[in-house]
C-alpha cells in the first residue's frame, strides 16, 4: 500500500479524474472530500460490506417463503 503524508487542505490526485482532499482533522477523525467521475462509486467500506452481507442473507433464505406468507395470513 502506498502511504502518503498530507496536511489539512492538501490533496491527493489519483489518475486524471479522482481527487481526495483532507478537509479537517479533529482528534482521531479525519474529514475527507472526494471528487470522482460518476462511474466510480464511493462508499464507507464497512457500510458497503454490511450491504453485501445483508443481500447474501436475504438471498439465501432457506425458508419456504410461500409457506411463511400463508402461515402469517391465517
Amino acid at each position, binding site marked *: 500500500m502506498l502511504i502518503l503524508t498530507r496536511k489539512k487542505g492538501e490533496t491527493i490526485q489519483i489518475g486524471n479524474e479522482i481527487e481526495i482532499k483532507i478537509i479537517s482533522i479533529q482528534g482521531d477523525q479525519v474529514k475527507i472530500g472526494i471528487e470522482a467521475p460518476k462511474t466510480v462509486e464511493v462508499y464507507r467500506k464497512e457500510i458497503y460490506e454490511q450491504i*453485501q452481507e*445483508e*443481500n447474501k*442473507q*436475504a438471498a439465501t433464505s432457506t425458508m419456504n*417463503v410461500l409457506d411463511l406468507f400463508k402461515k402469517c395470513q391465517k
Partner: protein
Amino acid sequence: MNIQTKYHGEITIEETDIIQFENGIPGFLNEHEFIILPLTEDGIYSIMQSIRTPQLAFVITNPFIFYKDYDFTIEDKIVKQLDIKSVTDVKVFNILTLQDPFEKTTINLQAPIIINTKNNQAKQVILNNDLYRIKHPLFNESPDLIKG
C-alpha cells in the same frame, strides 16, 4: 423467453420486463438482469428474480406501504447513471430479510433499489443517511399490517 425461477418454477417472461443492473448489486456483482414477479395477491410483496441464476431471488416490497415517510434524495450521479428524467418514472423497492416468525422480518431501508421505469435501468443505492438501517424492522410502525 422462458426462465427457471426459485419460487414460481419455469415461467414465460417478456424480455422488455427485464430490469438491468449495469454494475450488479453488492454481493452479486455479476448479476445484471432481474425480473420482478408478484408474490402475494395483495400486491404488497414481490420477488426480484435473477434471470441467469434460478436460485437467486429476493423478496422485495414497496417501502412506502410500511414507512409512509420514507424519504431520501437520489444523488445527481445516480440520476445521470440511470438517465432519470422525471421523479414519476422512478420506482422504489427494498429487499426484505425474512425471519421466522415473519413479524421479525427486516427491511433494508439503507439500500433501496431504484428503477427507472422508462428504460428499466436499476441500481441498489446505498444511502449516506443515518436514519435508515440495513435491518430496519418491517413492522415497527404498522403492526396492523402483520396479518397482510
